[in-house]
């Protein structure tokens, strides 16, 4: 007697071995799920497209930031041209400086006219140097005396330079309107005169004279003199 083969344990569990209508339905439903997924992907194609575009834009922005296609900048030269310098005058002088006074002066220039006002304010700086101009000393300004003594007859303390403003250090503080060149020259002279009036005072001249005595005494003592007589001759006062 023929007996049908008993199913294996695996066939019992899955039941694939059978070709029943139930298994066909299941297979069809699985196929439909895949189709549905594919259709869904096709229907929402714009989602991956947007993702791709976003990534592309990010990459482009990043590359443009690191290496922009337009790199243009305004280049402005603020340095002067290279030009030669000429020695206009050179001379031997003999000036002892014993006191220097550095100062600043602020001066203003103003002009009214039909179209409006012009105004310029500048700050000048200068150094007044007080001392002795040895070119004004007489030939016998120095005399060596016995017993390690000497006598100095020197011109009076005076201003060593008539030009003492460093105009190249001038600061422009305020400007309005059109400024003619005469205005700047006028301001220069005005500042110079103001500095002279303020700083070329008897007290400063006296301080310079006292320092001259101290310094010359020290220098001639170093030369070996024990008694140094210093006289300033007021007749040779040099007027600036």
């Amino acid at each position, binding site marked *: 007697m023929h007996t049908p083969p008993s199913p294996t344990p695996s066939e019992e569990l899955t039941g694939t071995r059978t070709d029943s209508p139930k298994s066909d339905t299941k297979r069809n439903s699985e196929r439909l799920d895949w189709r549905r997924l594919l259709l869904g992907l096709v229907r929402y194609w714009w989602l991956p497209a947007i993702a791709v575009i976003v990534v592309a834009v990010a990459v482009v922005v990043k590359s443009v930031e690191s290496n922009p296609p337009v790199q243009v900048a*305004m280049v402005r030269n603020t*340095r002067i041209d290279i030009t030669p310098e000429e*020695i206009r005058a050179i001379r031997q002088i003999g000036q002892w400086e014993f006191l220097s006074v550095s100062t600043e002066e602020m001066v203003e220039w103003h002009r009214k006219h039909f179209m409006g006002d012009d105004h310029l304010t500048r700050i000048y700086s200068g150094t007044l140097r007080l001392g002795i101009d040895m070119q004004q000393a007489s030939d016998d300004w*120095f005399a060596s005396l016995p017993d390690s003594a000497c006598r100095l007859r020197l011109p009076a303390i005076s201003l060593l330079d008539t030009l003492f403003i460093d105009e190249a250090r001038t600061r422009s503080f305020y400007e309005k309107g059109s400024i003619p060149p005469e205005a700047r020259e006028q301001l220069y002279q005005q500042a110079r005169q103001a500095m002279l009036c303020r700083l070329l005072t008897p007290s400063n001249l006296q301080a310079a004279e006292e320092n001259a005595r101290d310094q010359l005494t020290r220098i001639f003592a170093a030369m070996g003199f024990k008694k140094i007589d210093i006289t300033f001759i007021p007749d040779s006062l040099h007027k600036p």
Partner: protein
Amino acid sequence: MKPMYLRFASRLLHTVAVCLGLLTLWACQQKTADAAQGQPEQTDGQAAPTAHIVMEVSRQSRLYTTECVIHKLVTFADNPTLEGKVLGVPVKMKARWGDRKVAIPVDLTLKGYIDFSTFGSQNVLREDGKLIVILPDPQVVATASKVDHQGTRQYIDPLRSRFTDAELAELTRQGADSILSHTAQFGIAELARKSATALLVPMLCRMGYDEQDIIVRFRTGFDETDIQPHLQKN
């Protein structure tokens, strides 16, 4: 009847005229407001000192022996350019139409000196009847600078603005600095040493020494590059 374009032009002109009038009124009001903000009453074309500060008073012991006046024509051309790359192609083009140039003549006075503030008995030696004076190194100072305002020239095309006073002052400062940076080329230190010797030897002769017995020495190895020009302090 006027054509349409004429009527439009006339209305445009009227509008521009009204705008200009309003602008002028506004500018006048601004000017009055500025003047009312405590500006001192001044005479036309007059310069008036308004403030001053004594910055520094110092006692010195310097013997100036050489004076040198250096002239420089400071020139400057303001031509800004646009430089860079467009799509990898190098680009260089003028950013303004027209030229803007200036020439400023500047004179700078330099003086060479010997500083005697440290001079003492250690600088004077007597050997075998000879007097040896050892002097400190010569120095150079800029004592004054002057701009020739009448000789200053500006070349400005119509579309460009004039140089401001601040710009002119800055260019002048650069010119003076340029001269000072080249001080060693002028030989002022060597001249200062020679002049100091020429000044001191006659004085030492009056002390009773013969000229051949007087030796004025400077530091060996000194050259022009050791000069440190001192700018006036601002």
